[in-house]
């Protein structure tokens, strides 16, 4: 089992606000690491550090055993870390194939006016989507015409195709219905089976438990639970997510 990303006591402050502190975790190849937490728990900050949107300012982030501080998403991508965001996964008005290759277009040369290899890109995009079982009506249609689940899947297929070793999924099922969530979870499992290290951010413990190998629950910027699948069951995850001790206290107070 190779460790792809390791975090040692990582923290992040925005001015006077400490959004995250003392986070230690490992992302292994072929495993799904689930990060759970309520709104404002620090999930977004955690993935922003890994994906290069915001650099951390405490602790160490190791990629393949080497210390890194990413200053742009491009750098993270160059290390094989791809992120699929819940809301900003795609550019809605652009065609499916243009979205698929955005930022990594195939062109005839480095000259600024060098032509794109459009036929090749359309063919590859179509093939890769079919591999994941997504058949779009027309590869030329704006991606905004696809359903939310399909868009997530296109973004996942894109990350896998471009050689991602670590796939970070930011609440991929949050805005989806039951059936579409199932489809997305299937691709999460597929990516794991393909040997990728998956970081799955969610606030739904049921979804997490379906695919996860390792679970971390964040609360107010710190990790309150850090277990492997053997050490925890769904009930405990659910209770912890719902508030754990606080919930017990609350039920005592409400006294019914």
């Amino acid at each position: 089992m190779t460790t792809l990303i390791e975090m040692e006591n990582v923290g992040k402050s925005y001015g006077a606000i400490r959004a995250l502190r003392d986070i230690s975790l490992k992302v292994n190849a072929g495993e799904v690491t689930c990060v759970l937490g309520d709104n404002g728990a620090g999930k977004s900050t955690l993935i922003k550090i890994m994906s290069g949107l915001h650099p951390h300012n405490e602790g160490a982030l190791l990629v393949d055993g080497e210390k890194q501080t990413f200053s742009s998403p491009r750098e993270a991508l160059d290390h094989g870390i791809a992120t699929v965001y819940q809301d900003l996964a795609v550019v809605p008005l652009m065609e499916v194939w243009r979205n698929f290759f955005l930022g990594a277009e195939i062109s005839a040369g480095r000259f600024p006016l060098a032509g794109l290899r459009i036929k090749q890109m359309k063919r590859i995009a179509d093939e890769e989507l079919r591999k994941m079982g997504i058949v779009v009506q027309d590869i030329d249609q704006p991606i905004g015409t696809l359903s939310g689940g399909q868009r997530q899947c296109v973004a996942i297929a894109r990350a896998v195709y471009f050689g991602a070793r670590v796939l970070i999924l930011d609440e991929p099922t949050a805005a989806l219905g039951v059936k579409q969530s199932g489809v997305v979870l299937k691709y999460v499992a597929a990516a794991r089976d393909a040997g990728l290290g998956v970081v799955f951010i969610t606030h739904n413990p049921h979804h997490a438990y379906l695919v996860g190998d390792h679970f971390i629950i964040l609360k107010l910027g710190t990790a309150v639970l850090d277990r492997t699948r053997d050490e925890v069951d769904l009930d405990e995850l659910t209770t912890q997510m719902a508030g754990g001790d606080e919930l017990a206290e609350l039920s005592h107070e409400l006294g019914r």
Partner: protein
Amino acid sequence: MSHSVQAAPPMPAPAEPPRFRRSLSSRVLGRPEVGALVAAILIFVFFLIAAPAFRSAESFFTVLYQSSTIGIVAVGVGLLMIGGEFDLSAGVITTTAGLVNSMFCWYFGVNLWVGALLSLAFCLLIGFVNGYLVMRTGIPSFLITLGTFFVLQGANLGVTKLVSGSVSSPDISQIQGYDSLGKIFASSFKVGPVTVWITVLWWALFVALAAWLLQRTRTGNWVYAVGGAAASARAVGVPVVRTKIGLFMGVSFLGWFVGMHTLYRFNTLQAGNGVGNEFLYIIAAVVGGTLLTGGFGNAVGVAIGAFIFGMTSLGIVYAGWDPNWFKAFLGVMLLLAVLVNLYIKRMATSRRLS
């Protein structure tokens, strides 16, 4: 990944998988320039009927010339708007470009080529500053370039008065380089009875370049992406800041180009000119199907928008009507275009399954 089991219908011939195409009508109607093209044809036919003087090759090329003086900058403004930004300084920068060139060379007595290159560098710098400030501060480009617009408008008049003592730039036709620069920027030639201004050819070239850039290059892909969803674009590794600054500089380059044309055609400039043209560029772009919010539009559409402008501004004169109505007409066109664009965007992003 062995999950292709899920792909329900087994492909009969995996070598050539069938791909669905949307119907011809939905693909054609989804193009940004269609509305403008229909409008252009209607207006053209209308003036052919209403204005006898309109029906000749000469007046057609006069219309093209008129269109090109707006159309060249509109190409840049269109690209910028597809990239999700505005430039209100685009009109006044044409005058700035000419003034820098003419007054520098007149004051120091140097070859006009030196001044032209200096002016180019200066305009590119203004474009860069516009873009840099917008990207760095996050203040809407509408406000930043409104500021640049006023700065340049005031500086144009102030500096001209300081240097030449009046509000028009001095006569530069005797300075070295006037003829060669005039050939590039402001010459014309005859084809039979028709006078073809070189700006028409430049316009066609810039439109072709922009069309290629947008549809066929990686830069073009990035322009659509930064305009459509800048955050998404950045997240997948598109250099958003560089792309947008480049677009601002493209506008100021084309503004410089038109400034050179005006200078070498008339050899003296009124320092107050150019104000108001920025809206004509924006109207040309919007009438041509460019979405005000960015991410949608194309170069041919913008060219058609500029052509509609040229056609109506002269058509009204040819028809012998009061030219004051022209602005009212432009306003109506703009409103119609915005409504059509809104409709098309809704169509393009609404879910259409099966």
